[in-house]
């Protein structure tokens, strides 16, 4: 089996279907984004374009996707076109009835954001009292409805000492997956970087522990999508590409149809109201740069560069202004 191609179109599209939100998260990257939304008819046109490009899966986010009134209809259309349909939600609006409706509409997976096993810590971070309890209830209702569930946790200062607790919470709530998202310095994440982001050494220690848990914990998939961990793990054949997957296997759509390489890179490379997806994917100069990064600084002499490719492109770009620079989270010292 081969392992070395950039596909002709993205396999997954992450779509901020609305930017309206009922939360006030400390690290929000989309609150200042456009509130313009595509009409249901235009959403249909975009979905047809994704189907034509043979995209596998559509993952709705935002904002809070459930605040879009026609989400169920959008999901139904997506599932009818053959996409695997999923969503990231804060879970606040999901009760038993909504969970059943999501299942009927075609959602196969739903991820709920929970950043701490401690309710008070999560509620403060997300800006809404009672949100932890609601999130756990949402997971139970979704599971009961037959939807595969996951927990998404943004790793930062508030939970760095509670990684084991997050895993225990995931196990007790019966999710199949917990996604440890590395902290991105976009939007409020950049403004609150000094309060929330970890030092490179703290990132190293976190990943060492998370990898131990990933190996030892049964009945739970622990996802760590950060290229810089290639320093700590054996080479994997689970993905087709090296470095960040953004712009190589996935793309991001904003609520107004703008296309960006990922949700954390504010560079618009097209708009799906007017542009063809495969054309943007093939001809974007930004994507070309992301796929052809050049080692700089300490990356030049690093043995892991061929796997890591300089780490997270979004983070590096946000903090250094040059996507080819070494990832600021990388703990390796220049030799």
């Amino acid at each position: 089996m081969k392992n070395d191609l950039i596909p002709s179109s993205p396999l997954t599209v992450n779509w901020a279907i609305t930017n309206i939100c009922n939360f006030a998260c400390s690290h929000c990257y989309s609150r200042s984004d456009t509130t313009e939304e595509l009409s249901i008819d235009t959403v249909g046109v975009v979905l047809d374009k994704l189907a034509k490009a043979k995209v596998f899966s559509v993952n709705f986010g935002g904002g809070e996707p459930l605040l879009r009134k026609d989400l169920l209809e959008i999901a139904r259309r997506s599932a009818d076109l053959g996409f695997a349909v999923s969503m990231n939600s804060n879970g606040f609006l999901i009760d038993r009835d909504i969970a059943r409706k999501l299942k009927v509409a075609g959602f196969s997976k739903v991820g709920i954001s929970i950043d701490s096993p401690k309710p008070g810590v999560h509620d403060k971070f997300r800006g809404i009292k009672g949100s932890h309890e609601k999130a756990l209830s949402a997971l139970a209702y979704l599971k009961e409805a037959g939807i595969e569930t996951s927990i998404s946790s943004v790793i930062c200062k508030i939970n760095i000492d509670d990684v084991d607790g997050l895993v225990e919470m995931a196990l007790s709530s019966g999710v199949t997956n917990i996604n440890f998202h590395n902290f991105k310095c976009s939007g409020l994440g950049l403004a609150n970087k000094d309060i929330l982001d970890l030092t490179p050494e703290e990132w190293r220690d976190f990943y060492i522990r998370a990898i131990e848990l990933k190996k030892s914990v049964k009945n739970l998939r622990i996802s760590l999508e950060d290229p810089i961990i290639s320093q700590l793990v054996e080479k994997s054949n689970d993905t087709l590409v090296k470095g960040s997957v953004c712009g190589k296997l996935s793309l991001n759509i904003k609520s107004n149809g703008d296309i960006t390489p990922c949700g954390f890179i504010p560079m618009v490379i097209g708009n799906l109201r007017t542009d063809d997806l495969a054309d943007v994917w093939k001809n974007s100069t930004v994507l070309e740069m992301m796929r052809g990064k050049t080692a700089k600084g300490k990356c030049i002499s690093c043995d892991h560069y061929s796997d890591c490719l300089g780490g997270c492109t979004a983070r590096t770009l946000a903090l250094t202004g040059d996507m080819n620079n070494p990832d600021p989270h990388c703990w390796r010292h220049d030799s």
Partner: protein
Amino acid sequence: MKIFRNPDVMWREEDEFREQAYKGLDTGEDVAEIGTSILLHSGKMHSLNVLGTEIWKLCDGKTPQEIVSTLREMFDVDEEVLRKDAGEFLQNMKEEGLVYEE
């Protein structure tokens, strides 16, 4: 024994690479490294070359012998070599959960 594709596997052919591989076959080039399809299953991705892709597409209830016979009509390869390669490939796909036997 019939071989079936696991219906949970998402997959697609990559038309541009497929065309490139078949052109290479016509001119006698080694096309083993050209991925012509992508499979996604349980969070793991696989890229198959042109022979792998054709075997994958033939996993629709055919027996291994039927698959080899069909491949013989498509590729100019010695039958014994094809039987061995296809057998190993099918075993690999079975272990990955991509196909199942009935």
